């Protein structure tokens, strides 16, 4: 769930752009993983091929975004580091499942179609902001846009082949709504923190008092640690 340039923003400095592009690179990397996973789990050989090709495209986009980020940033910063473990922390992939595990093939293809369309719109907005700095970078984003359009149309074509138009329309709108809701939720997290932060800090002060009464220190030095280890205990 990445931070997207807001509609009313018509200018971002290079560092702000780099931050957003870093989020795009996480999103593309995560999509590559979802597609690669789908290629391993589906049975149809043509679908396997399709998912692998899609995965390769997403990996390519990830690489392009990383290059753009490195071109834009004025100096290295913690926020710009790409760390694979952040894919979970940022919520791009669930720790409990891949999407292909949870959705049926038809639902999965509608999900892909809807999200590729959303990505396309957000990329167009990003491209507008980036073009103010570099036409070269803008061209590279155009490359990605062409791929996203292809992914959208292929997924939509597959979905429409396997369900009626009305059903596709409803499911598509539902996915668009859910996806927009997820982005809204992600962008609002910092605001909700303002409310919860003071409560959490008060709780911490309380916990300090409680913890001072708890002594869980064990004597780790032991003649025989194999026997002295209480294997049933989590302490």
């Amino acid at each position, binding site marked *: 769930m990445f931070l997207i340039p807001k509609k009313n923003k018509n200018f971002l400095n290079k560092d702000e752009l780099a931050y957003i592009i870093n989020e795009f690179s996480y999103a593309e990397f995560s999509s590559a993983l979802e597609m690669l996973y789908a290629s391993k789990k589906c049975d149809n*050989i043509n679908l396997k091929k399709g998912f692998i090709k899609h995965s390769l495209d997403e990996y390519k986009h990830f690489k392009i975004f990383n290059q753009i980020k490195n071109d834009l940033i004025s100096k290295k910063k913690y926020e710009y580091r790409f760390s694979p*473990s952040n894919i979970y922390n940022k919520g791009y992939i669930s720790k409990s499942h891949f999407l292909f595990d949870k959705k049926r093939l038809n639902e999965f293809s509608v999900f892909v179609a809807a999200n590729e369309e959303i990505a396309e719109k957000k990329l167009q907005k990003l491209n507008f902001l980036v073009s103010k700095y570099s036409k070269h970078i803008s061209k590279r984003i155009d490359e990605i846009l062409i791929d996203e359009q292809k992914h959208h149309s292929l997924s939509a074509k597959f979905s429409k082949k396997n369900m009626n138009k009305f059903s596709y329309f409803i499911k598509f709108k539902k996915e668009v709504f859910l996806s927009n809701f997820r982005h809204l939720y992600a962008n609002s997290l910092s605001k909700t923190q303002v409310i919860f932060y003071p409560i959490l*800090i008060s709780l911490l002060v309380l916990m*300090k008092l409680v*913890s001072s009464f708890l002594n*869980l220190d064990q004597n*780790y030095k032991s003649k025989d640690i194999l026997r002295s280890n209480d294997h049933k205990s989590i302490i």
Partner: protein
Amino acid sequence: MYILGVSAYYHESSIALIKKDKIVCFIKEEWLTRIKGDNSFPRNAILFLKKKYNISNSNLDLVCYYEKPFTSWWKLFKYSINKPIANKDFLINHVKNFTNSSIFFKRDLNKKIKISSNKVVFSSHHLSHALYALSIVKKKKDYAVLSIDGVGEGITSSIFNIKEKEIECIDFTTYPNSLGLFYSIITDFMGFGINEDEYKVMSLSSYGKPVFYNKVSKIFDKKKFQLKEDYIRFHKSIDQSFSKDLIKIFGTPFLSLNNKNNFKKYSNIACSAQKILEETIDLLVKKTLKVTKKNKIIICGGVALNCKAITNVAKKNKNTFFIVPPSPGDSGSAIGAAAYANYLKQKKINFFHPSPFIGPDRKSNLDKRLFNLMFKKIGNENQANNFIYKVFLKGGIIATYLSKSEIGPRALGNTSLICDGLNKKSVKYLNTKIKNRDFFQPLAPIILEKNFNKFFLKEKNIFNNHKWMSVLAKVKKKCYRKIKPILHIDKTARVQTVNNDFPIYNLLNYLDKKNMKILVNTSFNISKDPIVFDINDVYVNMKRLGLLYLYCFGKIYKIRNL
């Protein structure tokens, strides 16, 4: 009946399945999710084993988690809660993660495989390290074990004396005084990733001089084994592990190493930190040998991955026999946990499994239909070796995919990218263009064990570790010019030796006869990705890297377009 060992939630989550004192299968979660260093509950790995070995409550004797979950969570909390306001960022994150922590291991396990509660047991963090380390040696009571890592259950290093049926913990150090965390804050300061890029600091250290030695000594006091709180922030913040005081002594963090001055400065800092690390390990080794009165030591824990430190410490203790297992970090502890459960059943420490090739068997898991769409066979077993020889002569690179995955972080020929080690152009191309590694990181050579003496100086007390690349070797002076492409700036190489136990032996033996004695071996992955696991990963990675040829189960294949 099976025993399952699990290591998860902190570093690379892994599981090990054992049966009758033998490892049946070992899997890292990252192999399946493709997220490097995946530390989530190993759901995919468990499902893989469930499907392949039909494991269930009825055929599982015990499931052992590698440490005490609550102690691990509590010790970090307890340290930071002393100053709840100052440490609020860390604490809020720590408390928020409570329900996703290892404390709920049983809950997470039961979602994937229903297990009776009395079958779930818990080892201890450094004990699991020690038991894995002992699993690769036969006469266990001859050894002392030194475990050094970041932190586990609030303990940062432990000394164990191994007896016939007992393991005695002689000494330990506690959080936040940690050699692993000390090295991590230096890694973080330089803009590299913690728990990912410590090896880069190690490589960089060879370019520098210890001009910051006195300053680094202020951060970590080797005699007291103390990491000064003024310089750390990992107990306060989740974003940055070092404090403003550290910036005061070293200057700006995250500088670009492409600038000559920055490179010189950072390599000097790295060299100074490496020196402190080596001297501290040396002190711990000497203490271990003194109190246990033994001359064989196994070093484990994440810090043992620093092959330069291990090699230099071993040089100072020539009469001591050193072993560093192939996967000394938390990932290998899944085997240690399984070994502990095995001990609970048998009351003996007899678990022995020295092979580093313990991943799932690749041939039996291969989707042949898909494989044939992806690759075209261009030679049978007899022709393959000659074909590879010709590719190498032209400066080409081959990907390998043989029998089983390697357990540790280093590819040992089964899942590697290889090329002629003496061809300067192809080594450079593989290193900087294909693998996209920094220019200061050398690639490692792979050679037949019998050829080792021709190029390298043999240190008897560490020689065995070359099989899984845990140590460095000094190159013979007369060979400097000849093997320059694989030589590090300090004239060492992290050479891997191969005997006929290794699946890649046949190829190396053939090339040896053609007088191609040194190859380069680097892991078959892309930066920030785990090593490839199945054939889909192989195909995707070959396409991403622009590679053409795959050496697979003794035959050679060319990649097709899908």
